[in-house]
Each structure stands twice: as C-alpha cells, then as structure tokens.
C-alpha cells in the first residue's frame, strides 16, 4: 500500500462509481453521495478508470468531480460549510480517497472540521449539502442496468 499523498491537487480528477438509478442524464442524484465520506478514486493512482471492472454489477458507471468544482460560500443556518478531500489509500485500492464535509475553518477553530468532517444536525440541511456535492459531479461513463 502506498503512502498517503496529500494535499490532493484541486484540479485532479476524482472518480465515483454510480449505478443507473443514481443519475439523471449526466447529473448525479443526491442520494448517491454520502455526506460523511464519499469514496472516490484519484486519477493519479488509477491507471485505467474506463477499463476497470465495475465495483459491483450495478455500480458500473463513472462520475467525476474535483476540488476546484466544489461549491464555495456554502452556508446553512448561517454556518459556513465546505467540502474537502482526504487521501485514503487502502490495501486493495491505491487510488481510494474520500470527499468529506464540515464547517469551514474560522478564527475560533483554524482547522474547521478537517480531517474528520462533520454533518449538520438538520436533515434538510444535510440533503442540501448532498445535493450541492452531487451537482458538481458529471457522469462520464453512463451506467447500465445489469443483465
């Protein structure tokens, strides 16, 4: 397993597996992203995204995003939030990393909620954050229904 390699460059492409019931056209639906930690694969450590076997028979499409496309100026109930990436290689997946969310760094708490992340208490606010993240993702390989 490789060493952690951070920070992830903000323009590095991050791939997320999606299934046919998680997309509308090239947009990813909010229930397909996990606010606590959405697993993605880093372009730098993934040799052949389009030739790789699917994660599961259903999760056979790919959507991309990158830190540069994460929404700025997010505020929910007057609390500023952000998305950030955490490099997290695993034994069976060198490219694995995660997108997490949390309160933005402030004078009171310079690290914000990095690296663990934090979800807002309001469920409606959580859904809005999930939708914001999903909006940044673009389907680059359309998923298909398994045979």
């Amino acid at each position, binding site marked *: 397993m490789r060493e952690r390699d951070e920070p992830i460059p903000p323009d590095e492409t991050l791939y997320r597996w999606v299934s046919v019931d998680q997309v509308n*056209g*090239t*947009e990813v*639906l909010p229930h397909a992203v996990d606010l606590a930690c959405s697993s993605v694969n880093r372009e730098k450590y993934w040799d052949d995204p389009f030739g790789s076997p699917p994660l599961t028979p259903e*999760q056979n499409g790919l959507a991309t995003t990158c830190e540069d496309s994460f929404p700025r100026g997010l505020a929910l109930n007057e609390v500023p939030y952000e998305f950030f990436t955490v490099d997290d290689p695993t034994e069976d997946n060198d490219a694995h990393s995660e997108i997490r969310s949390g309160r933005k760094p402030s004078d009171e708490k310079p690290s914000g909620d990095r690296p663990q992340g934090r979800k807002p208490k309001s469920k409606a606010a959580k859904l809005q954050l999930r939708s914001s993240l999903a909006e940044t993702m673009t389907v680059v390989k359309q998923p298909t229904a398994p045979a």
Partner: protein
Amino acid sequence: MSVYQAMVRLPAARAVSAEAQPVLGEYRQRLRVAERPVTRGVSRESVLFDMIYDSDQAAEVPEAVDHSPGYEQLVKLLLLQPNWDGQGAAAPNKAAIDVARAVVSASKDVGFNRPLVSADVEGGVATYFFGGTQLEDGGWSHQGGVLVDNDGDALLYLRDRRSPGSTAEDVGPDALSSAVQRVFRFIADAF
C-alpha cells in the same frame, strides 16, 4: 391523507384483471403472506412486509397481482444487504421502506406511475420523479422526490437542473401526500 390511510391502499393481492400480470416464481414466494389473517390494529400490508422480512411460508398464493414498478422496486430493496454498493452503504430498513411505501402509494394517487425508487447510500429509500424538458444529456430538467432515511424521517427534494441549487424540506409523517403533490406540481408546471 394520513400515513396510515396511504398504507391501507398498498399492495394487496387481487383477482386477475386485464392489467394484471402473471406472478413470477420469486415474486409469488414473497406474496404468499398476502392472504394471512390480519392482526387486530395492524394493516394487511404491514403484515405483508413483516412477513417478507421473516420469510414466512404459510398461506395461499394469488394467481396475479397489480403490476406496479414502484412496489416491485421497494420489494427488491428489502433484500439488500449492508455494503450493497461495495462502499459500505447501509441497507434500507423497515422504517424507511414503510414510509417509502406510503410515498409510492401517494404518487399513484396523483398520477406518477413510474417513480424511480432507489436505495440511499446513507441508508434509507429515495423516491424520485422526473419531468419538464429533456436535456441534451438525455436527462430531464426537473427532478423531485421524497427521501426517507432509516429513522423513517422524510425530506422533500426539488431541483431544476438548469440552475444551481435545490430545495430540501422536512416532511412530517402526516404530510407525505402533500409533499408528493408538491413534487407533482413542480414537475407539471415545468411542461
């Protein structure tokens, strides 16, 4: 309409009709519980879903049932195991599926006959509806739905893809039907 009223309309076995379809073997097995006696104070449909969980074997098998894509997708979700997405997702639990069932029922009342019912990667069930303009990418401009988590709590979701942002609101247990109607109006107004 209360949640209970919505649930009462849900999938009971019926006589063969012109729109009914033959029951597949696997589906037939799941529906074996449909003819069981109803416990006092518990709807037949709740018993049905309880029995699916328990893999009960008794009772007669109906020859045919109403074909409903939404219900069929819900039944499939009952069979999901944890980590169904290969990334550690929680499986939808009974609380989520019971509420999603009421959402599907309410959607039939307003004319949404083919919802997209899908497992939520955070646990729970998402029920979506699409409409408006078909975009160049093949998707629809308007998407809306009701997302139910494993606590059984529901959220309304509306989004016009032609501009950034979305609407997300809590939905009380007695407001599922009105939430579905809001989604319907949101999409109908887009045409």
